[in-house]
């Protein structure tokens, strides 16, 4: 771990606003040695090429972009570079946008108003293989897995339901608790919290639940 900590995490920025990329880059580079920006891109094609060239550890991915957005970048890059980790970074409040990138394989989601320090922490955490759930994402996922009356028959109960524990963890995440606080609240270890969060992410990505794809329209019907 000590060796790892010394080597900065390489980060690639994808956002269609050059100004935003410049801002993030400046902030990341000025406040910490922990991350190093190795490249940036403003479009889906540019991102696919740039990521293949620079082989970063983490890609900070904008959700809303022309020609398909973050989900499209994920679809193009992931089959060839499964080791690259994606962290969605968005100003969007539209849950379907965010869920789409998470479904496509992003390891987490943070909003653009996040402080630079927190962003660095999130980058390091996803680089270590952890999932990063902002309270808002936790809310979106809870919503997506909600058992509403009249919802579709469950095809794979193993995947399509959250366990009560996972639900508790997500609720606390949505309430703004840190992992440590969740652990002490539920009388479990931080490691267990991480396991639950990872399993929720896996379910979100693998779930066949009809709900997840039909979700956007369902939500509007309520």
């Amino acid at each position: 771990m000590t060796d790892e900590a010394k080597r900065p995490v390489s980060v690639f920025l994808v956002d269609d606003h050059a100004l935003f990329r410049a801002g993030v880059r400046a902030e990341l580079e000025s406040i910490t040695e922990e991350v190093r920006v190795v490249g940036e891109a403003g479009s889906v094609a540019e991102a696919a090429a740039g990521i293949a060239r620079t082989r970063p550890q983490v890609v900070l991915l904008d959700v809303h972009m022309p020609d398909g957005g973050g989900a499209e970048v994920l679809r193009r890059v992931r089959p060839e570079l499964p080791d690259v980790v994606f962290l969605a970074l968005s100003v969007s409040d539209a849950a379907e946008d965010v869920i789409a990138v998470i479904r496509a394989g992003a390891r987490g989601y943070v909003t653009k108003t996040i402080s630079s320090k927190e962003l660095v922490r999130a980058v390091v955490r996803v680089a270590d293989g952890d999932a990063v759930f902002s309270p808002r994402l936790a809310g979106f996922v809870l919503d997506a897995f909600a058992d509403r009356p009249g919802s579709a028959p469950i095809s794979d109960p193993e995947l399509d339901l959250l366990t009560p524990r996972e639900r508790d963890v997500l609720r606390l995440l949505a309430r703004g608790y840190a992992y440590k606080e969740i652990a002490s609240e539920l009388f479990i270890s931080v490691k267990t919290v991480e396991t639950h969060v990872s399993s929720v992410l896996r379910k979100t990505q693998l779930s066949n639940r009809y709900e997840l794809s039909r979700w956007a329209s369902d939500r509007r019907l309520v």
Partner: protein
Amino acid sequence: MGHVPEQVQRTPETAPPEAETVVIPAPRSAVEETGPPKLHRRRSGRAVAGVAGGLADHLGVRVLWVRVTFALLGGLGGVGLFAYGLLWVFVPQNAKEEKKEGTAKDRQQAFGLIALGVGLSVAGGALSGLFSGWVAAPLTVALIGAAVVWREADESQRRRWRTGAKTGVVGTLSGAGGWSAAIRILAGAALVMTGVGVVLLRSGSMEQIQFALLAVLATLIGVAVLTVPFWVRLVRDLGEERRARIRTEERAEIAAHLHDSVLQTLALIQKQSGDPREVARLARGQERQLRSWLYGPSGYGDKEKSGSEGLAPSGGRLSEAIATACGEVEDSFAISVQQVVVGEAELDEPLTALVHAAREAIVNAAKHAGVDEVSVYAEVEPTAVTVFVRDRGKGFDPDTVPDDRHGLADSIRGRMERNGGKCRLRTAPGEGTEVQLEMPIKVGKVA
């Protein structure tokens, strides 16, 4: 959000046809481009109207075979001609195709096939005894007349027709097109009249009932053939015009909104740039407003997909009420309130009380906790709505609160209990504060 009324009014018109099929990952811009290629009539290298060419392009076969098929079908009681005519009316011409002329041999072949098709149709009609020679001649005259008018109505005259669509029927038939168009239309109409007239005269002297019927039929066909292309195009042009108008209106609305909100705020920020707290407050307020306008439940970005559901009265939803409350506190206390709402419910009296209590709790946190961020989490469950208001601030010892402080006692606990809800408090000095509010709801209220 002063623009809500206009948005709501226009919602049905702006809903695109793909409204029902939108699913999560579809990027909005890409949705329109997908789907099978549309059938278009060819603009160039055509013998009559480009129907056969367009069909050949669409099916990926040689145009010659399509023409032969039409010609042969003409022998089957004129089916080929009828099909061709229908396609002519209903298939739009390709607007973007580049110009390329067919070879002379190709054209010759095409005209040969047209003659063959018409000949087969007439012969087929005559052989099957559908009409006698006497009727065939005027009917042919009428059809040729109609074809002339029709030709005039084709999209080669598109612009004229479009102006026509705006100036009304009279303008379409006479003006805008110039003398040649008028003469051709009159000639076509005259030919149709002649055909109809001959049939009528003939039937009068023969006193045969089927001739009278045929005359009526001929008249109807004449009228239909004269007007159908006009109506089809009129409807199409009107649709196009309406789309253009909606786009313009939408753009104007966006511009107005940006002027009212973003530009004003930026101007204010320039003036206040010495005061970071004020700048942050302005920016936060503006961000929230724009965000709800773009992505919110009744927001702009949602409108096109949600269709008529957007007509629900705004402010009637729990999530919106909570967002409004959080926004108000953000603005008046210059703190940031992070709010997450899971599920949705219609507001009724107890839930309104819940929102008020939550607002009071947020205000308390903003006033006393000494932090600049408060988390609000609301969840709608089948039997109850719970709200958590939490800060990581100073915290306090509930037992030492002086009796004259009524905030928590009356505004929060009292309000909750009067409406059948519960209020729990978790706090200790230095530990932050969390207010938990729970309000049971009637079954069926959960949406």
